């Protein structure tokens, strides 16, 4: 294992984030505040509680997930797409590093950045609502697993994309709707029965449900199912990465 190389890629990526730190942190903080003002204060005054939790607080896990998912994907996809686009990828590809090490460096950095973001949102939220975390360990576990899994997904998208449109399209057309429809802002038993069934096919539901459980011990599906699902996603992403590694897909001609 070439740890020096992993560290180099990781630090290089972190330095890149550092240069845009201000932009990348300010926007989620602003948008989180907006959500709390609009949904929490305006709508929340009409829906006072869900499952015994105040609506503003109920929102928090979903909001964090929304940000983690979109940010992990965009950070990681951009991180690998950009060197492909500028051509600087040649250096990484000709270095004595395995694909695993490349993934560790890029995905590790993207996941770290998302994690920092998640914590920032949590801190911002604490200005609006009292934070209460029933299972801190599982909260952290869901947080970490989510950023890793979705940074891996982002990495795959970044390798697959051969133009900027493709890079944007997955987060925009797939992830955002899945998050919105996955119970970020409501409990699924507020939906009509048929839609409840449809929603069960939304993988993001399991993430949000499990994550919310770690805060308030309320969930749409059982925690065990949530945990299984996140492991399945992770496995799928790893499998895809392994396949890319095997075939050199989009990286080698």
């Amino acid at each position: 294992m070439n740890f020096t190389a992993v560290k180099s890629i990781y630090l290089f990526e972190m330095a890149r984030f550092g240069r845009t730190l201000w932009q990348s942190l300010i926007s989620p903080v602003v948008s989180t505040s907006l959500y709390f003002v609009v949904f929490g204060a305006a709508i929340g005054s009409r829906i006072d509680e869900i499952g015994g939790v105040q609506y503003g607080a109920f929102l928090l896990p979903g909001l964090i997930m929304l940000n983690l998912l979109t940010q992990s994907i965009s950070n990681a996809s951009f991180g690998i797409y950009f060197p492909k686009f500028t051509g600087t990828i040649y250096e990484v590809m000709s270095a004595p590093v395995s694909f695993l090490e490349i993934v560790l460096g890029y995905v590790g950095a993207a996941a770290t950045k998302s994690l920092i973001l998640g914590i920032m949102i949590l801190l911002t939220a604490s200005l609006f609502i009292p934070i209460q975390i029933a299972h801190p360990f599982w909260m952290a576990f869901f947080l970490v697993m989510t950023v890793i899994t979705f940074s891996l997904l982002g990495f795959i998208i970044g390798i697959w994309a051969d133009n900027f449109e493709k890079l944007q399209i997955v987060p925009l057309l797939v992830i955002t709707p899945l998050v919105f429809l996955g119970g970020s802002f409501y409990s699924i038993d507020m939906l009509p029965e048929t839609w409840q069934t449809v929603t069960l096919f939304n993988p993001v539901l399991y993430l949000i449900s499990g994550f919310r459980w770690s805060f308030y011990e309320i969930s749409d599906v059982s925690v065990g199912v949530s945990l299984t699902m996140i492991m399945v996603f992770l496995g799928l992403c790893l499998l895809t990465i392994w396949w890319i590694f095997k075939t050199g897909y989009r990286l080698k001609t």
Partner: protein
Amino acid sequence: MFLQTSSYRGLLEHKQEIFMIYERFFHAYYVGCKKSCALTSCGAKSALHLKLENHSKKRGTPMQKHPSMPPYTQPIIRVSNLSKTYGGGFQALKNIDLEIRQGEIFALLGPNGAGKTTLISTICGLVNPSGGQVSVDGHDIITDFRAARKMIGLVPQELATDAFSSVWTTISFSRGLFGKKPDRAYLEKVLKDLTLWDKKDNPIMTLSGGMKRRVLIAKALAHEPRILFLDEPTAGVDVELRRDMWEIVRSLRSSGVTIILTTHYIEEAQEMADRVGIINKGEIVLVDDKDNLMRQLGRKQLILDLHQPLDSIPPELADYGVEIADNGQQLIYTYDTTGERTGITKLLQALSESGIRFQDLNTTKSSLEDIFVDLVKNTT
């Protein structure tokens, strides 16, 4: 590391030239030669030196332009039966066999689309070969890629840089990527040798094109590679910078780095290379010592348009090695301008003695360019 002072180099050049021939012929007397070289460089000529001179004449001029390391003959890169077919079905490399010798400058010459970049990229791991093997210092580039790649630095044809990073950051990154511990002193030296030191904190996007190319060289050298690939290092570079580049390459070579460069410029190959390989349409059509090629360059042909066609070469002219061409209308005599005698006078005398008259007379000189054009034409 490299870039020595010129006076020192002069001395070194002289010594090494002798060492080189010496190594080939008088292996047993290693220490003795060292002494005699020291003597000859002060002007005294020993018997051994005279002997060496004779040898050098027979073998042609040794590489005088280079402050050379002894030219090792063992290959450091071995390419065997390598082929590459791109996704669309286009075959860019066809059963390439090539050996690069340790310590040499090898110029890969070929027209656009010949496969130069593809060949280099395959050796460096950017392109998956479709068939064949490549080994670098005995390490297979696929099964033992770490060991193979550690030895190689690559300067790509395209100027691809991290626009926002500083020069220092980018070369430190390159070093780390190849698994080397940080070494400020070494990197400082690389930057100074490439006259980039005062730019070390500038973002790369603020540098000129020529400087960016040097940054790419610095990146490639950051991990102390033993082999350096330069894919068209002087494309789009002005005359002065081109000379600088040549100078850099030569000093790298004298520090023991094996260099493979691609170029369209015959002049460049002529100026720099120890050996030249010509590639066209994915095939290596010729690999030879530059000196051999240059010797062919020194060859001229005398073409005589005859008054009356000849059926065969008259016995009186048999010794001259003349050839008949154009259905007997022409006699062609090939001679070496670097030789002491061209033999033209004698030939003309012999011709008039045997009553062969001619109405016109031409001479042609072949250049590396001709050789190149010929080869490229023949393979189309």
